[in-house]
């Protein structure tokens, strides 16, 4: 069962920015990626570091599509844990290093200018 929680004005988190909210029993990070809002738990599954306090940037990937050359991808869509630099895709919660593992994501909507997250 999910609960809708209001988190204040959406305008407080501009595109490219993110912030951490304490919901009492958990902390979540809200990210604004190109005007869309996403939510992740503020806890990395590696050593439980405060993931959502980390930098948001892109990442380096290389595969057959890139001719095995390194490419900069997912610019502005990756958060990097400040403890040990494990990377997560903000939109999906997918761990970049261990793509079979993901963090939960929470739906975020804007109602009358207010951020609402379903947790």
């Amino acid at each position: 069962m999910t609960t809708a929680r209001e988190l204040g004005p959406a305008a407080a988190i501009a595109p490219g920015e993110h912030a951490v909210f304490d919901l009492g029993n958990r902390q979540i990070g809200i990210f604004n990626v190109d005007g869309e809002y996403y939510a992740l738990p503020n806890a990395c599954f590696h050593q439980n570091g405060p993931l959502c306090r980390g930098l948001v940037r892109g990442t380096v990937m290389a595969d057959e599509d890139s001719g095995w050359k390194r490419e900069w991808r997912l610019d502005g869509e990756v958060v990097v844990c400040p403890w040990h630099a494990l990377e997560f895709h903000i939109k999906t919660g997918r761990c970049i290093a261990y793509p079979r593992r993901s963090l939960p994501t929470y739906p975020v909507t804007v109602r009358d200018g207010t951020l609402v997250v379903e947790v």
Partner: protein
Amino acid sequence: MATGTPHVLAEHRRSPLLDQLFVVDLDVHINDSAADLIPYCELPWRKSLEISASIPQRYLDTPGFAPQFVPWALMSSIDRRTTVTDPLQLREDMDLLGVDVPVLFPDSMLLHALVKPPDFAVAIARAYNRWLIEQWLDRDPSFKGALLAPHHDPVVAAEEIRRYAGHPGVACVYLPSCCVDPLYGHRRYDPLYDAAQECGLPVVLHSVTAINPIFPFNLQAFETLFSAHVFSHTIAMAANAVSMLETGVPVRFPALKIAFTEGGIAWVPWLAMRLDKEYSERRTDVPLLTERPSHYLQQMYFATQPIEEPERLADMATLMGLFDGENNVVFASDWPHHDFDHPDKVLQIPLSDEARAKVMGLNAARLLGLEVPAR
């Protein structure tokens, strides 16, 4: 409302078990800049420190002080403080980590074995030890320190050990193991071991990543720091352990305690098995050893960080069982460096309560001669 940015350790809800245990951390780093050591260094080398200090500070990369060749493309993006620059900050960090007793090691002096000329290296080792005691150990009795032993002159290293061994904050001797030449089994180090044994101070080997023709730092074979870092700590520990066994250090200095830090622990059973295999055929090469090499290796101590993280964490308990790890593994965090381990990670290894208490603090208390407070 969004919360402000707290201390990077504050939002982790640590295990309550941590507060029930006596926790000793055999690897915590304090930032030793060239400027810090200037007032403690004699002439003419104080002038050299002044020049190093005039260069904008770079982490583990200061000409004439922490000399490094750094060819790797930089990509890491850890957004947090990775240095500790004052004792109050360190105590706060330790309280958040749940560490009772941190054992202090340097930052820049991790590269001390590379410093030249030897007279300068000896001067800054002396300066570091004075600075460590006055600026850290004298300011918080919960801090314990590792005296820097300049490998360039083991006789001076022995003098430093005897000079400071009586200080209540001095708990061990740090042997800089990055690019050290010769390795620590060489008989030139005997005066150092003699002093450490006489004073009851263990020696603790600690490496760092660098490129150098000296084995095992000829890491130019690799393209990335990913690869170099796999070897720079772990193989340095293994190489020095073999060197010390080869010349019978644990036989010739039977009361000397030897510890290895920042190599993780998975190398220990691998090395023990390789050594025992060689011993069966080549005992005559190492006639000082009267037991199989693994016997001596198991008398040494091994710090956890960077703890291996297999998918099945129970494998770590199995691994420790291969070398009596319950009695010779000691916790280390390596705070505040990029690859520090939170104590909770080590607590998660499925060990008995007794083994857990030993690994988190009681083994280190035995190693360092610490009193264990009643809880």
